[in-house]
């Protein structure tokens, strides 16, 4: 153990060294609250993006971006969130600020745009997002929204998500949580009835995941009041104060909101995790215990036993193929990283690299404890670092987002999509099988065998038997 210095993971840029550690080998804490370093190619996005991904799944709201065109273009239909009702959220509205607006101010144009939207669509709510330029020139979107709300008698909610205030999406999550609180806090004289139902925070209904979990809960005898924000509507969100429990899934985006909901409306919260069969079973049991109802507990056990029995043979089959393979994880937040680590381990795989865009110090400590000694942990990685470690660590498969996907495939490394945009359901028992299948088809594809072997006349002429 004395000799660990030689295997300390090294950064290309000295200032990035503090953002890369080896699990258990370094007493130093990882630097993760740093702003992204200028000139390194961060995978991070912006405050506006953080706010938009949280709010976008509110299906019947209009999402209006107050800024130049690009901010809206890049976030049009940004998530794979599904809707059982309105498709309004899949449209992209922009005030399309031009030079004139930048010079003379964009407030008037914003007001006109809101008028036009109300006339054409009569939406129950309009979220108005501030961007870099809107913030820079000092447009008072709060005032414009207030006036428009009064004028039209509809919810026009400012989202203060000026992009340059940080390169970190977490700040945007907070701006979104502020906007949601503004939306759901009952107006004077409005009474929201208390129910036994629960809210599901941090569930975005990617690939229908909310519907799947809702099915489990229904079978147990528990109802979902509203999810934040997958397949939600403005009217349903306004009933949020009536829940008796908040489930919190994606902690990065929803932890703060859960605290506020407890303070404001006395709703307790519970962390859950539906990624992986074990996590799902554990989460369902905890929910059942919260209700402290024999019937709910009985039904929950029946459900878990049946579902486990249904998927375990499949998982076992995949495990045989995947055992001992080396995996890397680079995702947005620590919640997701932890969930994926557990699932990959259930498949017998070894984790050699983990990183996130926005993890917090305590989350990294947790990660470090969870991982085998020597596993590389990295905050706000750039492609050069990811490339270096994928090669050095002989990684077989990587889980991450779109930007990492092509880098992995260029290096002949398998890739599992775990991002906003995915189409597959990865939650619950069905999700556990889907996840195992995704890992399998990319890790064990025949393609890697072909592309790693150079062209060879003898092998190509067909007479060469192996």
């Amino acid at each position, binding site marked *: 153990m004395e000799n660990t210095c030689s295997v300390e993971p090294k950064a*290309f840029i000295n200032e990035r060294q503090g953002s890369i550690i080896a699990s258990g080998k370094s007493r130093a804490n990882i630097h993760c609250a740093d*702003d*992204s*370093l*200028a*000139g*390194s*190619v*961060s*995978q*991070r*996005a*912006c*405050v*506006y*993006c953080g706010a938009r991904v949280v709010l976008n799944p509110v299906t019947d709201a209009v999402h*209006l971006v107050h*800024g*130049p*065109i*690009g*901010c809206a*273009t*890049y*976030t*049009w239909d940004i998530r794979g969130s599904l809707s059982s009702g309105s498709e309004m959220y899949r*449209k*992209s*509205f*922009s*005030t*399309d*600020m031009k*030079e004139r*607006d*930048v010079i003379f101010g964009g407030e008037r*144009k914003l007001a*006109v*745009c809101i008028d*036009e*939207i109300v006339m054409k669509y009569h939406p129950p709510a309009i979220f108005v997002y501030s961007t*870099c*330029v809107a913030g*820079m020139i000092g447009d008072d979107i709060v005032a414009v929204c207030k006036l428009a709300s009064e004028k039209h008698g509809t919810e026009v909610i400012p989202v203060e998500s000026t*992009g*340059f*205030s*940080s*390169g970190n999406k977490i700040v945007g999550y907070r701006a979104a949580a502020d906007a949601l609180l503004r939306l759901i806090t009952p107006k004077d004289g409005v009474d929201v009835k208390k129910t036994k139902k629960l809210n599901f925070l941090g569930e975005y209904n990617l690939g229908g995941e909310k519907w799947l979990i809702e099915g489990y809960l229904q079978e147990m005898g528990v109802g979902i009041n509203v999810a934040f924000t997958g397949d939600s509507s403005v009217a349903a969100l306004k009933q949020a104060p009536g829940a008796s429990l908040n489930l919190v899934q994606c902690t990065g985006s929803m932890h703060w909101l859960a605290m506020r909901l407890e303070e404001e409306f006395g709703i307790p919260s519970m962390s859950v995790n539906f990624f992986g069969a074990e996590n799902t079973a554990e989460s369902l049991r905890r929910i059942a215990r919260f209700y402290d109802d024999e019937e709910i507990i009985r039904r929950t056990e029946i459900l878990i036993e049946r579902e486990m029995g249904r998927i375990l043979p499949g998982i076992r089959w995949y495990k045989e193929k995947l055992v001992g393979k080396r995996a890397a994880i680079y995702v947005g937040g620590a919640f997701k990283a932890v969930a994926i680590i557990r699932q990959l381990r259930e498949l017998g795989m070894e984790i050699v690299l983990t990183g996130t865009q926005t993890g917090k110090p305590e989350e990294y400590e947790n990660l470090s404890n969870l991982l085998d000694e020597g596993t590389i942990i990295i905050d706000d990685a*750039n*492609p*050069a670092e990811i490339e270096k470690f994928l090669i050095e660590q002989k990684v077989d498969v990587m889980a991450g987002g*779109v*930007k990492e996907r*092509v880098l992995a*495939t*260029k290096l*002949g490394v398998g890739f599992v999509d775990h991002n906003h945009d995915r189409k597959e359901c990865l939650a619950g028992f069905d999700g556990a099988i889907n996840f195992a299948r995704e890992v399998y088809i990319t890790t064990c594809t025949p393609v890697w065998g072909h*592309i790693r072997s*150079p062209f060879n006349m003898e092998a190509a002429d067909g007479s060469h038997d192996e």
Partner: protein
Amino acid sequence: MEVMTSDHQVRSVNEDQCQMCMPLGGVIAFKGIEETMVLIHGSQGCSTYMRLSNVEHYHEPVDIASTALNEKQTIHGGEANLRKALDNVIRVYNPSVIGILTTCLTETMGEDLDLMISAYKHDRNLQGVDIIPVPTPSYSASHTEGFWSATRRIIEHYARATAETSGINIIIPHISPADIREIKRIIDLFGIEYTLIPDYSMTMDRPFGGNYQKIPPGGTVPADIARMPGAQATIQFGLTCPEQLSPGEFLRRKYNVPLFSLPLPIGLKNTDRFISVLSELSGRPVPEVLLLERGWLLDGMADAHKYNAEGRPLIYGEPELVYALCTLCAENGATPLVVASGTKTGNLETLLSPILPDACEKTIFLEGTDFAAIDQAVEDQRVNVAVGHSGGRFLTERRGIPVLRIGFPIHDRIGGQRIRSAGYAGTLSFLDRFTNALLEMKYGSYRQHCLEETRGKGGY
């Protein structure tokens, strides 16, 4: 600016965008220069979005650095971040060229990049790295203008008065790497030496194999760009390029290089024009293989003409590509009924109106438009096939209209970088795709259609 809709209503809100932002076009142009790294001067999000769009389309790792400004620098100026960013980009990527693109934020701040760069080069005593800044505030134009601006700035940066060369210059708009390769193949058949810019045919579409390199090999060589003023002529596929942004116009005015402003060689007539100019410049007859390819195209056009006549196309995207595709469809009897671009400066109506054949119906032109306006026009004109990028996908979802993917971005299908539509052979592959989209629709519905429409009307 307002969006003009087909019923001549004007509205302020832009609903479902049909354009990308200005620096994105600049990124693609710089990716076509050898040993180049791109740095976005602005907040972190901008570069991440542009990487994402490029990655989803090209399926290549597209590294774009950012000066990652935040609140403090926005107030006090971004120079320190710019310097640190340049240090880090040089250290990690070791580029010969760094293209710096500004953003809405830094243009609003009023950053003086030229001054900052010369101070940086002086302080660091920087040798062997060219730094080329291009102003690209997205509130003034779209990615199309960003592409032309950056291409022109790169040429302005390197061009020197030189002795006459025997070669020609080829300046391309934003097209697929496969189309760039096809254009190069055709020029090679005439045995002409040329400098093509920006050449991202290898940098944005890498074959697998060899060691992975952070800056992919390929691209136009700066030393060749420097010699462009000595060329015999410039061929620029830029009918729709505004004069003040036109790289070919710059070379003509400053260095008297004769300029052939041609449409993209997509479609029979457009390809004929390109081939005849090449033949004229080289003094060589048209190579046999091209005549063969032309023959196959004509044969295909004849085979498909009746099917194509049933096409009622919408064509949308970047102006130069839209222009070429409109003429292609028109020469096959499928007159475009809606022609649209998110870019405002393409002058498409003026260019296309005189040459679209007299159809019974009038074509609607929408420039500087959005998909809400396009959708309305599609309904009004009873469009049955759309040609353009992934932005039109909802036309299939909501109206059942097939969208032939071409242009940028294509993020919901694979192979956008490999779509070849240039030259006679490329035109034929496009045309087959077009015809087959119509046939697929026909076979999918004609039995039911006939049953509903005809039965009971003929008196039996």
